[in-house]
């Protein structure tokens, strides 16, 4: 099994790389390929079992779009083929149709693999929490509540009623007017939930592993479940501010 980490040295703003460290402990036999920004991605000539990219600065985001543009068709075929891809924070925006950087007055076309757009305003930061569940009943049952945190300059726009990653129980969806979070197309997952979504949600980690055909317990399961349960209790508490 091979997992490719795209641009991890620079797409790692909010503890994102611990997703991969957690996966390394969960899948000790998996090979992890770390691709640097100037390098040709591993997925171009190979078919990894999973692609991961974490949150990045707005400047880096534009460089990433440039770096991936030559491989757009390859990425499209991997999505069609069901390769698991997890993009956290603003990483998924690189796949969008378009990003407007309001503060910098820059308009950038994304890779147009996801029919959403993003608007980024450096003077309008959203900080919040996320409590949601996967849309399918069986998946929601298996994974339980997905918890996480949001901290972003961007808002996402478009229609994701049939493609949401999470139905939010509490917290914002694509934007303040939405309760449907992120994008899911087969095994492509783009979520604005930032940082360590896998160690924060050990059952989600197990679910993603199952999508790669591996049924294993998440690493340090007892400790991870205890921290997750504590978070779920607090986030479900109506007194908790969101």
């Amino acid at each position: 099994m091979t997992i490719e980490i795209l641009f991890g040295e620079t797409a790692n703003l909010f503890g994102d790389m611990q997703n991969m460290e957690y996966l390394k402990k969960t899948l000790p036999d998996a090979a992890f390929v770390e691709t640097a920004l100037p390098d040709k991605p591993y997925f171009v000539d190979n078919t990894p079992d999973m692609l991961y990219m974490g949150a990045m600065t707005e400047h880096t985001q534009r460089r990433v779009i440039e770096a991936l543009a030559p491989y757009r068709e390859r990425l499209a075929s991997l999505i069609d083929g069901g390769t698991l891809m997890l993009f956290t924070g603003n990483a998924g925006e690189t796949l969008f149709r378009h990003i407007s950087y309001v503060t910098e007055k820059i308009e950038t076309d994304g890779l147009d693999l996801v029919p959403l757009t993003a608007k980024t305003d450096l003077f309008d930061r959203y900080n919040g929490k996320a409590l949601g569940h996967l849309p399918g009943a069986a998946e929601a049952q298996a994974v339980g509540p997905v918890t996480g945190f949001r901290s972003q300059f961007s808002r996402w726009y478009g229609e994701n009623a049939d493609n949401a990653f999470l139905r939010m129980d509490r917290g914002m969806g694509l934007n303040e007017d939405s309760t449907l979070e992120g994008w899911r197309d087969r095994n492509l997952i783009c979520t604005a939930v930032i940082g360590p979504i896998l160690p924060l949600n050990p059952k989600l980690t197990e679910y993603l592993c199952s999508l790669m055909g591996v049924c294993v317990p998440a690493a340090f399961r007892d400790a991870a479940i205890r921290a997750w349960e504590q978070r779920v209790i607090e986030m479900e508490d109506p007194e908790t501010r969101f």
Partner: protein
Amino acid sequence: MKTLRFLFAMVAAKCAALGLRLLGRNATYLPGLIAVKLAPDFIGHLKKPETLICVTGTNGKTTTSNFITSVLKSTGKRVTNNSFGSNVQAGVAAALLLNANLFGKPKNDVAVIEVDERSSLKIYPYITPDYIVINNIMRDSLKRNAHTEFISFILNSAIPKESTLILNADDIICSHLAPQCEKRIYFGMDAEKPDHTEGMAAKDIVYCPACGGRLVAEYIRYNHIGRVKCERCGYGTPDRDFTVTAIDRENGTFTVNGEDYKLVNDNIVNVFNFCGAIALLTTLGVTHAEIVKAFETAEIVKTRFVSEALGGGRSLTMILSKGQNPVAVSRVFSYVSKCEGDDKCLLVMVDDKADNTNNVENTCWLYDLDYRPLLDKGIGQIIFAGKRCYEHQLRCAMTGIPAAKTAFVPEVAGSVNAIDLDRFKDIYLLYDNYLLDDARREEKALKGRCGA
């Protein structure tokens, strides 16, 4: 020309300050808030003191500005500062208005003002500091500061081009800030040069902002602090004007540009802070002898660092460890791991108190926090206290810290009872700044247990 609005704001703010003082309360924020609410350009109407110094950056602002203030005072200057107040717009306004008469004329010759980076856009448009000391630009609270490029964007937009910058050369982000400023003085450190070119924690800059080439390190101390150069265009660490060339821990001194100073605190981040202060003070014309004299009585504020013997061969060291700030806490972990001793015990309370009251703390920062120093064999017990202790438990497990030497206590109150005093002599209590009262309570309880 003073506007009526300014005069009204000044009178209202002065009255508020008087009222607060009569009530025995600090007037370090509210009067400033009233002033800027009534007149957003309030600061701009105040006459600038003869010398206006601002200190900003992610970590070390308070230590640096306090030290600069105490040295200048010791040379006979009358100095205003906001060390007991807030470093956002209202706090800065409060400090400056308390230093001014009703018409905005300053009472003191010098103002040393600590400025929150994010507040720069609300402060620098109205005042032009003569000097701005910038210690570093590091990963900080992600909710407040987002990322270092955002903070750089703010500072680059706000800093007036007329100011002289005193910059940490060894921080490649900091040293290239505000290119509009031509007058630049660089400080940094050659002493204890590391032999590694990769830090253990995440770096906030990997590629050259000028050409996109890879920044190649001569060495990295931590995160992105070190000496780097772009492999393509030569962009890199600038030459320094003030350099720490030696740290003599045995004799308690450090050397800058060939001259020795008392080592007030041997944490490397504080040596950087003091070097920045020395660079500024020397530039202002303060003599080496005057700075040395001030160093003799200088100490880190006791709410930030205090170390004492407890009797029975035990010691207690209390260190402020700012929660939500992964670099600051990582540096404290690293510092404690390097302290001498084979039987160290850490009690860590770094939860965000406000964020854990009818809220859930954003714990992403714990996944940027470098726990690896806690693997140090000299550390025999680590206790994480607070609501987020189970998250620490997971992080400790992920780091490979033996479960046998860890304990996780959901309540801060009474957590000191988890310390195994029979086995561990050197106790370190690390606390977030909003848990200072809790830390003091635990300190008292520990002293009670030790019979001190």
